[in-house]
């Protein structure tokens, strides 16, 4: 056996466990979802091939379009919110001033809490009867003279309420990604910018942000992918209400599969979500790769 052959065999053996895991836990379920999406899949008895019927059923279902629309609106609103807060805290915590490590830990702390726990905590904070946030907002005049503010009253206010929680919960992880990017920028760029008389804003705009591009790309891809798959926060905090106005695509998929047991249409929905994620990720990668 030649040395090259030997190395190839060893390499193959090394990746085999990962390949097996990938096959069992990703490729097989993925293939199965595709297969299921073309069948009427009963709990008992044999599945029946129905071609594109499940996709047609989904596209004709108003609930699908409502949840798709909401998912996009949520993604478009929460992503900039998260990014702006993360960038701000990253810039602040990247300085070498005293206490930055402490503040980094504080900002990162919500990330370690489970998403469900965070949702329940914020649900309580938003409580009409006991919620600290509601008391604070009413103190500043929200909710009118009667002081009966309830953030779940409309779809828009519900979404912003959830967005605030998600920003609090996840801006820490984005901050860490951005700090890593910031620390990879060489000091001489800043020195050159200073020598050329650039203001702080000009330095951020013309030096920091362009050089931070790979980290921004990673943060945005993670944020958008997470938002398209939004589930727990809305199940716990809004239950899709009021009147289905905050029902996400994944919530609709779970309802279809595990509440209504329409497994074929649910699989079709899963495939649609996967295609959306794939397209969005490819577009983002291309956009951010352009000027490296």
């Amino acid at each position: 056996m030649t040395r090259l052959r030997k190395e190839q065999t060893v390499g193959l053996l090394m990746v085999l466990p990962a390949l097996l895991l990938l096959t069992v836990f990703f490729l097989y379920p993925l293939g199965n979802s595709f297969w299921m999406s073309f069948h009427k899949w009963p709990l008992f008895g044999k599945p029946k091939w129905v071609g594109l019927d499940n996709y047609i059923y989904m596209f004709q279902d108003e609930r699908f379009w409502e949840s798709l629309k909401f998912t996009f609106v949520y993604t478009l609103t929460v992503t900039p919110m998260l990014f702006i807060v993360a960038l701000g805290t990253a810039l602040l915590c990247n300085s070498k001033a005293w206490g930055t490590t402490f503040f980094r830990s504080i900002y990162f702390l919500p990330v370690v809490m489970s998403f469900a726990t965070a949702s329940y905590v914020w649900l309580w904070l938003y409580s009409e009867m006991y919620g600290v946030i509601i008391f604070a907002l009413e103190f500043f005049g929200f909710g009118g003279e009667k002081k009966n503010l309830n953030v779940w009253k409309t779809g828009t206010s519900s979404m912003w309420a959830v967005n605030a929680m998600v920003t609090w919960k996840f801006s820490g992880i984005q901050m860490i990604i951005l700090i890593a990017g910031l620390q990879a920028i060489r000091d001489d760029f800043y020195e050159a910018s200073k020598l050329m008389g650039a203001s702080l804003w000009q330095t951020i705009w013309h030096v920091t942000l362009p050089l931070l591009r790979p980290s921004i790309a990673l943060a945005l891809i993670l944020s958008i992918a997470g938002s398209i798959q939004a589930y727990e926060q809305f199940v716990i905090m809004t239950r899709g209400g009021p009147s289905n106005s905050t029902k996400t695509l994944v919530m609709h998929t779970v309802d279809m599969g595990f509440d209504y047991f329409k497994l074929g249409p649910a699989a079709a929905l899963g495939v649609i979500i996967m295609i959306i994620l794939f397209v969005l990720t490819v577009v983002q990668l291309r956009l951010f790769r352009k000027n490296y």
Partner: protein
Amino acid sequence: MKLLIKFFLITFTLVSVTKTSFSEELIVWSRGGWSDWIVEGFNKKMADEGKDIVAINNLIGHADFQVKFTAALSAGERVDVANIDLINVPYYAAIGALEDMTDFLKSQPYYDKLNGPMLALGSYDGAHFAAPNAADVSGYVYNKKLMPTPPKNWAEMTSMCEDFAAKGQLMIAWPSKSYGGMIFTGMPVAWANGGSFVSKDGKTAEINGPKTAEWFSHYQNMQNIGCVPENVAVWDWPDKQDAFLAGDVAMIGTGNFMINAVKDHSEKVDAAFTAFMGKDGTKNSAFIGGDLIAIPVTTGAKDAALEYIKYVLSEAGQIEVYTKNGGIPIRSDLFDGNPYLTDAHMVFANASTVGDVPYTTVYQELMDPWLVANQRIFSGEDVQTVLDEQNAIMQKIIDAGH
């Protein structure tokens, strides 16, 4: 001597193995904590009778039960007895997931005393696939400190609402954010008024009928008067319950389980119960929730499962285990002389004889338009317009089937 020791060892081993092999295990799936008491009682009874049947309770949370049970059925996993949320039983019966127990049930002397709507919900194509097990019955709870006597009809309720509003107090609240809460405590008021959710065969959506619309309008009217929390359109079950227990609201819809829950709130609440009534107060109704008990087709011990169900439905199971722990018996012949049924329990027991529960194989999917109807109406939209729209969606779901 060695030979003798060998003989005893072999005999002992054989006896042990034989004993273990013949001890029949019965795998019970449940979603309520009370099932532990039933299983305990059953195992004691089997031991007393010298029968080698041991029931093992697989207690699963309410929220996860349906998904896990369906996955188990689909995978062919052995489940001998299942205590299923009654509302989902028509679906399981329709897909052939449950054993036929018609002969068994009809042979029981108390067959005609079993709760009718629950029995009907366990039936499909004229056969019984599930038996009544544990009933959660709905009704109003009111705080005598705020409301000495409950309203007897809708006119009286409206008049009391005006009095409360004039004093700046809240009279009633309901959980518009909870589809289960609204069908449990709202729909029965419509039923008592002659309204309907779906037709008896489950094939026609009927929430836009005049009698159901009349109930929605009645509640919406109380909102307009001002005796209802302003944000009731987005209130959940705990919101209205907390408000009641805090003494902020005089009455709410609830279930028999509230009898125990109010005991520790005597400072602000002096609770009493009354049944849901129709417009003129001549008819009462209730939502009969809870569990039906069934034998899945994946059972490996059908006879032992029937023995278990027999115990659940017996006087020992229904009185000494279930009613003793706060439940309402599902046999009407066990109401009289039942030492554990207080006056409060009797309100629910009597309501269970006139209550109802919708029969449909697509219940979960229908809850979506039902919830939307509630939230839109209690946000101030026109009752009939909303009901017509949501009824059409419900009909579409029913027509598409399961």
